[in-house]
């Protein structure tokens, strides 16, 4: 068994507003092991990015961690001062965002950005760092890396930029990568390249990855396990194969069925009625019950149970029954 890299326990993020205290992340727990890719999937407003930002200590005020713990390699990092957290962000946690330009300094050559990051976090000399920078760019598939190292970020295409960001995120040899919608802004063909790259590098190095996305297809292709979020809570967590082929939570099931991929030539798509509730107007009981085809009185009154049998639902879909049906 590989060791656990990231461990989140009962994480609660709160945003006090003048009308109410919003909880974009509510009692979320999961682990990621070394070399494992955990997909965090959900629609907009599900709290998936907020959970990622809480882990790396990048919550925008007034959002803050209300309770719970975040452990990186067994050490608590949720209560560290900003100064120490900044150090950890470069060294132990690498980040890949949707827009590569947020992670790259437009005024510095990419080679300088890579060497600077390595010199700050690794015990190596300048020339070693320069050699490693070229190697890192070659590794992420940038052609003519030795020459491109002197280019500025704007001289790269979108896909190439995202490769540079991945090189930058991996260069200090972190144990965890947080990738927040890394391929959403890219074309299908480039997306496939980036996912393949991320998968290969993390396997080789045993890096744990938290892959935040709204795209079930990306999850299916890239991840080992998947956590489905709905309205700030975990709806379901499990291995990708289990969750995608035999979803237990009605939300996961509906989400899978409503992608056009699943239509199989039918004229109409299965649809989930309504939309994600606003955080300030969450329904009582299970937050999904107004949209749920199986909702009963218990769902309207009592908050959904914690993840038992992998799904936070009073009446999880009985997979045996489904197989027979």
């Amino acid at each position, binding site marked *: 068994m590989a060791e656990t890299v990231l461990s989140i326990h009962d994480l609660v993020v709160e*945003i006090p507003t003048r009308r109410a205290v919003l909880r974009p992340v509510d009692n979320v727990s999961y682990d990621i092991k070394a070399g494992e890719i955990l997909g965090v999937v959900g629609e*907009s407003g599900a709290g998936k990015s907020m959970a990622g930002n809480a882990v790396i200590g990048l919550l*925008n005020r007034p959002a803050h961690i209300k309770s719970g713990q975040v452990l990186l390699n067994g050490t608590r990092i949720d209560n560290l001062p900003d100064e120490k957290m900044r150090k950890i962000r470069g060294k132990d946690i690498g980040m890949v965002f949707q827009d590569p330009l947020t992670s790259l300094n437009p005024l510095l050559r990419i080679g300088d950005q890579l060497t600077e990051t390595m010199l700050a976090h690794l015990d190596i000399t300048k020339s070693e760092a320069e050699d490693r920078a070229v190697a890192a760019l070659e590794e992420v598939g940038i052609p003519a890396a030795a020459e491109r190292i002197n280019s500025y970020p704007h001289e790269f295409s979108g896909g190439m930029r995202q490769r540079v960001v991945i090189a930058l995120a991996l260069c200090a040899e972190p144990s965890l990568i947080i990738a927040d919608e890394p391929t959403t802004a890219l074309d299908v063909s480039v997306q496939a390249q980036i996912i393949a790259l991320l998968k290969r590098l993390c396997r080789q190095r045993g890096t744990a990855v938290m892959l935040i996305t709204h795209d079930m297809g990306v999850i299916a292709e890239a991840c080992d396990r998947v956590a489905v979020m709905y309205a700030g809570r975990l709806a379901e967590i499990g291995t990708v194969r289990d969750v995608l082929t035999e979803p237990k939570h009605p939300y996961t099931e509906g989400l899978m069925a409503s992608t056009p991929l699943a239509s199989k030539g039918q004229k109409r798509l299965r649809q989930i009625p309504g939309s994600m509730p*606003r*955080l300030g107007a969450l329904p009582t009981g299970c937050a999904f019950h107004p949209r749920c085809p199986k909702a009963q009185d218990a769902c309207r009154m009592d908050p959904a149970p914690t993840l038992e049998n992998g799904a936070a639902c009073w009446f999880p879909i009985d997979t045996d029954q489904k197989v027979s049906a």
Partner: protein
Amino acid sequence: MADTGLDKSLVPAHRYPGRLARMWDSDFVFNFRKSPIAIVAAVVTLVLILSAIFAPWIAPHEPFNPATWDIMSGNSRPMVPNEFTGKVFLMGTDEQGRDIFSTILYGMRISLFIGFSAVIFAMILGITLGLLAGYVGGWTETIIMRMADIQLTLPSILVAMLIFGVAKTLIPFEYQDRVTMWVLILAIGLSDWVQFARVVRGTTLVEKNKEYVQAARLIGRGPGAIMLYHILPNVLNPVLVIATISLALAIIAEATLSFLGVGMSPTQPSLGTLISQGQQYLLSGDWWILVFPAATLLALALSVNLLGDWLRDALNPRLR
């Protein structure tokens, strides 16, 4: 898709009883209620504007009617009975026995009228040119924005003095008193339109590429209708902020011009004229003739300016 930060859609949607209650509860009013500076500035501005509007009813004397002047009560100190007539004046009188308090009320009336008119004039000119520059683009934009650049290289007071000087030579002497006010409005307004035009052009450039404008073009709406009905309502927020700050600047500009002697005449004094007259008495010890009009100008300009500052923060979507 990313849900970082404070998304507006995350803020709870409530149901409110009425329009008034809804306004009272809106973020805008809430922000106002939480800002003591804004409240004080608003109260001061409101009191000053109201007292200017109702000057004929509030003022104890008619300062511009020579029949009511009482030479015997000249140079009275504030709140001290006059040595000859025994009359008491709140803020004293000047040499000719005019009540300073009354002259300030009437002076403020003129200052505010010129300020408001100049800003409205600048606003209309700036919005029109800004919309045209932003929406039409091409040579229209180049010409308008180069004009704005040239305007910016000249200090606005200088522009105003230039226009004022030209007007003075063109208009026959006997009409000059009557038209001075309008020349001032024109002069100050003309030196002030650039910031409106720049902001409106910038916002228009952003708005015109939004899809709602394309949707309007698609159904055959002409450029005029799109500018007026679609883009204009969406550029008004920044315009409102600039207008408030411009009002303070316009009042000061008018006072400066009048102080320099190219503004309102002593027979129809604005705050600036009063200050200009009062400074002659400062050395002779009659401080009140200068200090009260100057303090009024200060209070007016400062409170309007603070209000504008607050408005800018409150309407800035990035800070909310």
